[in-house]
């Protein structure tokens, strides 16, 4: 394995992110090739976390743009501070200033509200990490707009002119695949698909993130969840759910799994009525038997 990828992996792990080689490779390549990284995968497998860890790794700022349906350029890019501009105009009326000078004044940078995309581009101190979260929730139209920003890293504001990126930000996009991302955007990025972690990885994450959990319980929890994911469920529990559940069990001072506790805390893992019903007494027994089996 390439030395730098190996050290990237070690670094990420030091910051509390257990990265398998595929993830470390993707992050390394995105960094070296200066390309955005599109991360897809089930909910709760640690997509957003990648951007956070990357920001800490590079000791830089994380700028986050949360996408939602109806997101427009006013919220993503920039907006003038109209209230402040108006106020300034009212004051200026009494001063009788030169109109041209006044215009320059109220269309100055201090009247500009920087939204995430603009902020990521204009950051002076060095490249920021720009996290565009849940891009699949934004409209297709916004995707096209993003494409333009991501290829040129420049933004045109009619009143100010074109603003070029001081430093090209490192971009991480995440998607839950609630819809397919357009091919054009996909092509512009490197692509990483994260699956639910295997037993070893999940166990390591669990040990790292929930220090209060004893070794035997950690193993049972992990085995239980791994087995649970093999069942026909509408919403599979992610790592986030495993951690929640472990936290809950630690709070309840349990050091082993039993049917009663599992049934009472199943809501930490399964967040769908149908799934909870489908995981009734018998299923729990079967899962428990598997979880407590020694290999």
């Amino acid at each position, binding site marked *: 394995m390439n030395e730098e990828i190996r050290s990237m992996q070690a670094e990420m792990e030091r910051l509390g992110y257990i990265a398998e080689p595929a993830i470390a490779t993707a992050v390394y390549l995105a960094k070296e090739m200066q390309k955005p990284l599109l991360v897809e995968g089930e909910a709760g497998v640690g997509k957003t976390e990648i951007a956070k860890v990357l920001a800490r790794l590079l000791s830089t700022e994380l700028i986050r743009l949360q996408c939602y349906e109806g997101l427009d350029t006013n919220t993503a890019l920039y907006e003038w501070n109209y209230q402040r501009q108006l106020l300034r105009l009212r004051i200026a009326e009494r001063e009788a200033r030169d109109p041209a000078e006044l215009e320059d004044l109220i269309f100055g940078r201090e009247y500009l509200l920087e939204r995430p995309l603009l902020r990521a581009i204009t950051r002076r101190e060095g490249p920021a990490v720009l996290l565009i979260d849940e891009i699949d929730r934004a409209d297709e139209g916004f995707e096209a707009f993003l494409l333009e920003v991501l290829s040129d890293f420049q933004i045109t504001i009619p009143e100010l002119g074109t603003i070029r990126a001081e430093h090209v930000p490192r971009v991480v996009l995440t998607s839950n695949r609630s819809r397919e991302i357009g091919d054009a955007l996909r092509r512009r990025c490197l*692509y990483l698909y994260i699956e639910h972690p295997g037993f070893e990885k999940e166990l390591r994450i669990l040990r790292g993130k929930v220090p209060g959990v004893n070794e035997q319980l950690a193993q049972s929890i992990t085995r239980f969840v791994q087995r649970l994911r093999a069942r026909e469920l509408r919403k599979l529990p992610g790592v986030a759910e495993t951690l929640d559940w472990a936290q809950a069990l630690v709070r309840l001072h349990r050091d082993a799994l039993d049917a009663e506790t599992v049934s009472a805390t199943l809501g930490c893992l399964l967040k769908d009525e149908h799934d909870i019903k489908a995981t009734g007494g018998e299923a729990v027994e079967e899962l428990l038997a598997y979880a407590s089996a020694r290999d």
Partner: protein
Amino acid sequence: MSAHGLVAQLARFAGALRGAGVRVGLSDEIDAAAALKLVDLLDRAEVHRALRIAFKLPRDAWDTFDRLFEEYWDGRRAPRHPALEHALQRERRGPPQWRWDGERVRLELPDEPPHSEGEQPGYSPEAVLRRKPFDQFSASELAAMERLMARLARKLATRRSRRLVPAPARGMVDLRRSFRRALASDGDFLKLARRARPLEEANLVVLYDTSGSMDAYTRVLLAFAFALRRVMKRVEIFAFNTTLVRVTGMIAPAKIPQSLTRLAAGVPDWSGGTRIGGCLSEFVNLYKGTMIDRSTTIVCMSDGLDHGEADLLVGSMRELRARAGKIIWLNPLLGDSRYRPEAAGMRAALPFVDHFGAAHNLASLEGLLRFVG
């Protein structure tokens, strides 16, 4: 391997991926080459990971990728003919089958109209039409029905967008544009600009079951499709029974009887058996990329009486669920209070459906509006 040899190898590999139906573009090849420069070429697993990342392969293409990677990056590549891949894919769908095992017959329709209150005096003819089951319609009633449907279809065809666009005298104040406008009048806001959510035309894909068990409803449900076709720009209509046929082009909205004849000729096995799973998976495979996005509403009109192939059905429904905006399943049998969705196909499809509704009379179709609007 020399740099030139590596690039040539990469090009061959990308070609093989394309041959196997994986979308890989030239820009992906360039990315892949750049990525290979950055990784340890002697570490095969790392090359594998890097290529998968740089080629931007979605999860469902991984198996093909893995297989071809084995062939091409191990010195023992055996080139395959691309046609073979297609042949393999088609094989997996299985040959069309026509199942009829009596169960379909047992679930018969009620002899009496289940909604007899619609016949009460004092009801407007429209109200009567709304309640009357489709299978009891006379020709003139059908004509009236079709007029009603045209109105319904227009409502079905639009939805409010979540985006804000400039609108005259309606909606929230748009400060950005108000300000711009005020420049013309020396900074006085003579008129505020506004923006509101526009009406957006939905994409509609209608899938009709034209099997024997749906016969009583097919004509009117198709009339509904005709009406949709008249008012919507973007509607695609498919008929399925044992095979899937795109019938959008066969439908002339103004001439229903003629279109029906044309359809009967164009759709093989009309009034025959059903193979919902197979047909849906064919639909997904052929049209998922071009026809379905988040503004698409998929309406499936079927009684779900299908035997076997539940796995195929589940797989297709899951895929549709991931891509489409809404999935509506209309089942004429649901109008009968004795009916329970217990047919294997119906049960398999239900978890993926946003709205499961009846489709035995107009009132039930109108209930659709809440879910599309």
